[in-house]
């Protein structure tokens, strides 16, 4: 039993048929060709598959594709169109990532955080990112980059 769903993926309308039990992460990667959400655990532990669903971070391995019907899905591909967002720019300048596997999830978690709270404290950043595991960096370079986004923004005012 297949079901037709329509969603906006990175600001583009997409209509496709899915099985009711298809996981959104798999549909994004296998059917919609969006590879930035990564498979790290398939049970919501690591945050590598993070996407923005109607602007809120969601573990795309924990929801079904049919649940995204009629909703807006944003991945890192849709975040930066030819230029980097301030979050990406800061992470780049701080050499925050090593292997980069956790990067798409971190970028989106940080984007959500700064959208809700443009002036986060170090503790705010730590809490917002506590669901994104990274095995390479020890997090320090990531946290400092995210704090730096607001400092750069306030300087440019």
């Amino acid at each position: 039993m297949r079901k037709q769903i329509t969603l906006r993926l990175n600001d583009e309308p997409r209509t496709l048929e899915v099985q009711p039990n298809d996981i959104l992460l798999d549909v994004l990667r296998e059917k919609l060709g969006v590879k930035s959400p990564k498979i790290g655990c398939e049970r919501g532990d690591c945050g590598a598959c993070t996407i923005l669903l109607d602007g809120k971070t969601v573990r795309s391995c924990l929801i079904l594709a049919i649940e995204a019907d009629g909703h807006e899905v944003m991945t890192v591909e849709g975040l930066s169109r030819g230029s980097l967002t301030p979050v990406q720019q800061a992470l780049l300048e701080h050499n925050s990532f090593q292997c980069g596997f956790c990067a798409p999830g971190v970028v989106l978690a940080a984007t959500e955080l700064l959208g809700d709270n443009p002036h986060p404290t170090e503790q705010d950043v730590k809490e917002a990112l506590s669901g994104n595991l990274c095995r390479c960096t020890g997090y320090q370079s990531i946290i400092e980059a995210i704090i730096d986004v607001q400092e750069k923004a306030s300087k440019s005012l």
Partner: protein
Amino acid sequence: MIPSAVAEIAGFCMQVTRTRDPPKSGRITATKPYPVHLMKNGSSKHLEVVGKPFRKVDASAKVTGQTKFADDIVLPRMLYCKILRSHVPHALIRKIDTSKAVAMPGVVAVITGKSLPIPYGILPVSQDEHALCLDKVRMIGDPVAAVAAIDEDAAFEAMNAIEVEYDPLPVISSIQDALRSPGSAHMDDNPSRTGGPQLAGENKEAWRIHGYGDHGNVHKMVALEFGDVEEGFKQADLIREDVFFYEGNTHLPMEQHAAVAQVDGDGKLCLWSSTQTPHYVHRALAKVLEMPASRIRVIATPNGGGFGGKSDPFPHEMIVSKLALLTGRPVKVTLTREEVFYCHRGRHPVLMWVKTGAKKDGAITAMHFRSFLDGGAYGSYGVASTYYTGALQTVTYKIPNYKFEGVRVFTNKPPCGPKRGHGTPQPRYALEVHLDKIAEQLRLDPVAIRKNHLVEPYSLTSNYLRVGSMGLAACIDKVVTASDFKNKFRNLPYGKGIGLACASYLSGAGLPIYWNHMPHSGVQLRLDRQGGVCVMCGSIDIGQGSDSVLAYIIAEVLGIDPFDIRVLTADTDLTPVDLGSYSSRVTLMTGNAALEAAERARDLLIRAVSEKMNIPATRLSLSGGRLFDVENPETSISFAEAVQIAEARFGTIGTVGSYTPPPSAGKYKGAGVGPSPAYSYDAAVAEVEVDPRTGIVRVERIWIAHDIGRAINPALTLGQVEGSVYMGLGEALMEEMSYRTNRNVVHKFPSLLEYKSPTTLEMCDVKTFLIEDPDPNGPFGAKEVGQGPLLPVPPAIANAVYDAVQVRIDEVPITPDKVLSAIQKRDEKQEDEGESANGGGTGITRGVEEPHRYGPKSVPEVDWPEPVRVKPPWDGGTGKEILREAVHARE
């Protein structure tokens, strides 16, 4: 105009001192300013790229999510593979019935061990693995059969329809079980009498996991003696013995292993795989598939984390290759997280006993170290791991007489292998805590006992390791001063503590894994007449930044922007061999190869331009994308023009460079493990808070100083130090591979949630200092940084916990239950003064009141083999072992 290279390039630089606290002085501190580099042709040049905090060349791809990992590859008509794995830990395979699976819709091929009968293994001495088990499974998770189907669901359904019948065999689940199992030498054959594992009515062979190894379930035993430890103990004022246990843990890369195989139109096989060692995978594939290596191409995809966990050739790589050959279609496999846990090859659980003799001033007179490694079900790198648990004790503090005995056993658990620090974090933890205890017993300062007895730079150790530059004294000074260690040590309030530890690690293994005399790393450089430079090298970037290091070094020599260089790596068809991203070898070895290739290219350009423009070659220099006359800087041409002149003069411009480590000083049997072109050094201070009511340890801050030789890029170096501290923190406090017992040995929690690793909330603050004492063997003096900084972290934390609550935790990880148990035992004793026992401590060192402790009480009795005896260098030794007859004659 002199090209203002520095200013131009500064545009690409990033701020390295990404520090917020303290605001004025950065967290990176170098002991020396970046000096002038003396080039091999005698000319000197200020460094423009090396030592600068450039971005990684692949940084942009990372932040935009565009890095293409193995699982991101999709090919037309691609099939999906699932692997059926054993659910029993040790059994003979009686029967495999694949008929139902074959008949299922969407299934294209099903294979079993019969399709891949050739054994393989990373070490030539341990060819004990099969892509699919032939007749026996040795652990839960052993691969038994594999399916290729049109989609993942169909493959999964078919995998579950395969029926396997097993005849169970006795299960070995611990070091003690393995040593006592029937068939082991010197052991009573009746396990019930020796307290060994019990299962009635089995023959001796049934207990044996492998039909090779030293005996029974003993995979490897080694014994080495340098100098005379008994004589050394006689000179000691204090002799101390301790027992430690370091639990196994795993790499936990965020990216699960994945591979895609395809047969090209010409019948050649291509495998993309998330591997740290494409060259070794290439060799293993040729062997297992019985195909000429020339018809196989292995491309390592960027690793989503490795840490040693992707250094072995793996069954799934062989399986998809075979399925692609059988079906003629591309085949992909991506392991589940649970499968990654069972692939493992992580940190060996090691039980250790150490006995040290010391003078009153803390000078070590002799050390005797024994290690017992739980190897799991296969050999993997285990023989090397065994030697490594005894090799690097000697490179920090002077140990004039040293004896090492080690044993690795097979158990029915996932195989252990190399994880960051490979075999050395365990003994380093033991050694540094042991030294802390000796210092206390001798009433010496833990700083002084270390700093006063350091190995000399440019010296040979008792086991013939050649130490080069040695910045450990500077490392110790940095962290002791920055942390205010001397004022805090033994003076913090109860529940707060501070601890110090040091360490050292290799900058690449001195010997290759398979015996040969060829270079360990090769680099090929191609210069395009339009100014493009392409570097090709077999090394693979696993996140550590090896692609960037290649670009930086070449850019430095050719005076160009590193971001203009095309870096093409880890493709066995296109790139010269590099042995792989393991043993912290890439910056030093690949870096030296790149340096040679780049200097050859530079010399070609300079020669051609010198002839053409009639300017002496010694006056020409490459900088800022131009070639100019240093005495007449207005005369300059672009880099592209220089290439054109050279191409017109010499033909197509391509150069190669390669690197072979210097020969080892040790010539004895076992001398192959431990030598390295250069050793990095670290000192770390940990400050902790221990809650005595809950036993929870919180690490507040770690100060760490790393002797890097020279930082090719201080920003990337910093990342490696912080990442190592993070991983050491996880190992020290929470990470463990834990199995259910009762002869089942299933992993207790193969998931990212329940296998505890530090999140942002557990990670401590890290203050990093880089010590730069350039080593003559490193490119621009560089040594390793990827692994060494992990090593001092667990012992520094253990020593700090003792300072905080005055109980010794002689077992890693230091979990709350262990801390609490030791505290409770101590408090019970204080309430009941009549009790005579001390802390229930080691039970070994007598005559002193020992602090309460948690940890193993003893090690198994083992009949060690006669050691290989070697005279130390200062005693007229040549690095060769003393012949057996001579030993007996002396006795």
